[in-house]
């Protein structure tokens, strides 16, 4: 546990010092959303209809883009080898790095999402559900993406490749995240959707660090 916290704390201070990781992710999130009013036209009702979907897709893309370097710098400067050789189980190391990643990117996304909801004209009834759905969904995105980030270490092309591996696996989170918001706006119960989102998170929590650790072991061979 102490080792876990040490890694989280280090990654957080690296993110703070290296400057603006979180700011950049949020900016990408906003930019990607803002492209849509330009793309589909500014009619409020059309935007409102697609708002939840667009915000979720932008969150997916932002998570994916920022994940590309999750292990990359540690891999390049030799830290990853030493982390692999720490007395901590490698699964714990992976989990700690993913937690730190979520704190620096997932959390800011959640905080920024109401702003985007306003921009995209989302029905006000959806705001709290949007935030809640993102709060349940983004950790799964970080977990699943962490496996992808570990797999592409040392490969020839990072960004595009990662997206191909990770985006198909993000689809369930997207579906239930959007439908939770839509249900709330439509006046239905959204409990089932939240249960599924929670279930996905609970399943990813042990599985992804395990797969990520396996990927890291073969990357440092």
């Amino acid at each position, binding site marked *: 546990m102490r080792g876990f916290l040490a890694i989280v704390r280090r990654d957080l201070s690296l993110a703070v*010092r290296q400057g603006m990781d979180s700011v950049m992710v949020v900016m990408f999130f906003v930019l990607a959303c803002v492209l849509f009013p330009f793309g589909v036209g500014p009619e409020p009702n059309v935007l409102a209809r697609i708002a939840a979907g667009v915000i979720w897709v932008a969150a997916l893309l932002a998570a994916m883009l920022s994940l590309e370097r999750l292990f990359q710098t540690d891999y390049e400067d030799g830290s990853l080898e030493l982390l692999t050789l720490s007395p901590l189980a490698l699964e714990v190391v992976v989990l700690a790095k993913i937690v730190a990643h979520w704190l620096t990117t997932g959390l800011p996304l959640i905080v920024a999402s109401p702003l985007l909801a306003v921009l995209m004209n989302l029905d006000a009834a959806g705001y709290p559900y949007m935030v809640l759905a993102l709060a349940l969904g983004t950790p799964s995105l970080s977990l699943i993406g962490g496996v992808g980030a570990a797999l592409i270490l040392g490969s020839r092309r990072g960004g595009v490749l990662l997206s191909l591996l990770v985006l198909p696996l993000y689809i369930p989170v997207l579906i239930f995240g959007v439908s939770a918001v839509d249900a709330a706006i439509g006046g239905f119960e959204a409990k089932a959707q939240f249960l599924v989102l929670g279930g996905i998170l609970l399943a990813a929590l042990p599985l992804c660090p395990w797969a990520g650790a396996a990927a890291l072991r073969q990357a440092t061979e």
Partner: protein
Amino acid sequence: MTIFAGEGLVCIRGERTVFAGLDFALGPGGALVLVGPNGSGKSSLLRLMAGLLRPAAGALTWGGAAVAEDPEGHNGRLHYVGHLDAVKPVLSVTENLLFWARLRGQGAAAPDRVAAALATLGIGHLADLPGRFLSAGQKRRVNLARILAAPADLWLLDEPTTALDRASIAVLEGAIAAHRAGGGRVVVSTHADIALDGAAALDLADFTLRPEQVFAGIAGTGAEAEP
């Protein structure tokens, strides 16, 4: 007396057999110097001892128990120094070292141990400098301070003298001697000279296969089997 030993080790990298049939044994206070030409497998053997690589055949044991059974336990008793120094450019030297010390369970004692390690290696004055301002030699000394800041039985040092000047090499030799006097063991690969009393030398060239035997795996056996 717990012995760290390898028996019949075979190492295959990128479909090529680097060495085969390698044995070694290392008791407390022992030292092993790995020598051999470029590409003979010194780094590979060290990574194998660290558990970063898995032997294609053969067994690595610690006090008779297979190392592969308990990788985290093995990690806990070793320090590895590779080609890269793992110094984060945006963290200060002390912060860099504190992290590694804390990761190995050094809690409240960590700051003192780190300061002592820095002093030993003569870079106490750099303690608050961010990593990006360090020269290659200074980075290497920070990396060596890391292994002083948390105790571990086995030191695996891959060309630790790279980028060090004579004075620092002497400090390193002293640190190794002290480590061994306390019952620690050390394996060093080196091209340069490093003075270790009573160290056994292992020439990797002795375990390299003849060229026509070199290629292992599918390809190798296939090629071998051709008339």
